[in-house]
């Protein structure tokens, strides 16, 4: 039996072009739709796989931001046992402040800790400091392993063996004492899909627990002066024309280089 907490974060969906707000330092909220961070989806999947293998419970935890209910109900529909929404946080807070709010809330809320494993994505696309996992680990005084791609648990021995991803497809294996915070890079299997009907059913049958955030004044660590569209050095020569014309131009480029 393992008790797993998964920390989920919502980030702008960059399939749509993010627009910079008038202040020049943030994204225009009307230009972005929030979705669960891709790596966090893998963290949730790994947690559900652990529960299937060892028994136990999975609790999904997320800060209250727009769209969060959908994300938490989806976690329930996928097989999480509990979904906790941490409310009363400032929008647009730094990763550090958000992680600290999560960690402090976990600590003061009865029934959430101790957990054997706390899983979260290794990084999110809007992280300036990449700190969710590390800050939670520090504040809870737990070890942290990042880039995790597999977890095996020996609950009796209070330890886990985790695999980490390196360059070139190499995997490293580590032994770690439980409890531990893990930054998940990829789950052992692709994140499962749940049909919308199951999410709707979860919305009817299950409920979200709402907890007030335990916030303390966090020091500001960074100041964002400006957001901009990145300068690209050189950039591509763009091929124009109908699909036929473009295909012909590509073919010519390859022929010039002796590739066809």
């Amino acid at each position, binding site marked *: 039996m393992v008790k797993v907490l998964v920390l989920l974060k919502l980030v702008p969906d*960059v399939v749509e*072009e*993010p627009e910079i707000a008038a202040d020049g330092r943030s994204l225009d909220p009307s230009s972005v739709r929030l979705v669960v961070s*891709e790596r966090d989806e893998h963290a949730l999947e790994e947690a559900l796989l652990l529960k299937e293998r060892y028994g136990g419970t999975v609790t999904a935890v997320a800060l209250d931001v727009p769209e969060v209910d959908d994300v938490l109900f989806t976690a329930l529909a996928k097989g999480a046992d509990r979904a906790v929404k941490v409310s009363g946080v400032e929008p647009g807070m730094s990763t550090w402040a958000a992680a600290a709010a999560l960690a402090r809330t976990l600590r003061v809320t009865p029934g959430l800790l101790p957990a054997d494993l706390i899983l979260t994505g*290794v*990084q999110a*696309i*809007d*992280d*300036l*400091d*990449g700190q969710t996992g*590390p*800050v939670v*680990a*520090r504040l809870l005084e737990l*070890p942290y*392993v*990042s*880039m995790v791609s597999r977890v095996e648990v020996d609950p009796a021995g209070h330890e886990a063996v985790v*695999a980490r991803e*390196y*360059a*070139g*497809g*190499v*995997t*490293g*294996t*580590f*032994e*770690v004492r439980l409890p531990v915070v893990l*930054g998940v*890079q990829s789950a052992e*299997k*692709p994140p499962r899909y749940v049909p919308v009907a199951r999410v709707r059913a979860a919305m009817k049958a299950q409920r979200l627990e709402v907890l007030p955030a335990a916030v303390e004044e966090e*020091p500001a*660590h960074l*100041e*964002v*002066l400006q*957001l*901009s*569209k*990145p300068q*690209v050095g050189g*950039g*591509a*020569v*763009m*091929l124009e024309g109908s699909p036929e014309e*473009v*295909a012909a131009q*590509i*073919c010519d*480029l*390859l022929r010039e*280089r002796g*590739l*066809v």
Partner: protein
Amino acid sequence: MAGDIWVLVEQWRGQVTDVTYEVLALGRELATATGGSLQAVLLGPGVAEVPPSLGAADGVLVAENTALGEPEPDLYALVLAQVIPRRQPEALLIPQTNALMGCGPLLAARLGLSCINSCRDVHLDQGRLLARCLLYGGKVEAAVVPERTPVVLGILPGARPREQGRIDRTPPCAAVSVDLPATPPVQFRGYTEPPPGDVDITREDVLVAVGRGIQRQENVALAEELAAALGGAVCGSRPVVDQGWLPASRQVGTSGMIVEPQMYLALGISGAPEHVEGMKRARLIIAINTDPRAPIFGVAHYGVTADLFDIVPLLIDRIRAARQKAAS
């Protein structure tokens, strides 16, 4: 030691990695600007093994401990958290790689320092360190300053040419003492090589790469067809591998393979920094993407704003015809 710039040396499997030299080159520029010295920080089991190639640095700080044989971010952070308060550098630059991922944030969290990740450049601006970071998959750049120093900076691969930071001259070295727990909570057990047997994409001259824009597993066959016509192989971005549509051996990028083919055709790949690092050295890069602002067009030599499904079938026909003509 105000103004000193430190660079954490990444040693993996006994070798100083290329990205370390890139970061040393950036560190050298910063130290010149701040008027401080550039120190390479080497954690490892033996002082005797300081690599002479670290000559870009003015000195090497060595923390010796048998537990530090392989990069282990949690342990590294514990060690650095002992050394930084004693010597107070202006900035510690850490290569942002898989092996060191988490080290900077863990260290910053331990000491309450500012941490800025995903930096593609850092310079001195009106007396402050100003970092330029790539966010949102490379679609937005942020100009960021730390609220306090020392600051921990995660530097993306490719910030400077590695040759600039690789100087053969053994710099003077100073040992620093550190305390580690007898049994650290995270312990290294070993490495496993990727399973062999599949195509080695690092040896292919022509690569057709598919990203999430390929949309479904069945569509990968279209890329296979194109690769077959070209006499090359198919590779892909991380999401395609995460979905199980291609084996892990075909992943290009920081956690996958670094490829340098004659031609890299990127189909429906946005061009996130972690992907670009794996393919930017290809001789010819052609990208097809529906989004005219996709960052991949910044590294590609030629680009097409179009639906890949409109172009690829026509391209397959053309290449087959060209081949037939050449053969007859």
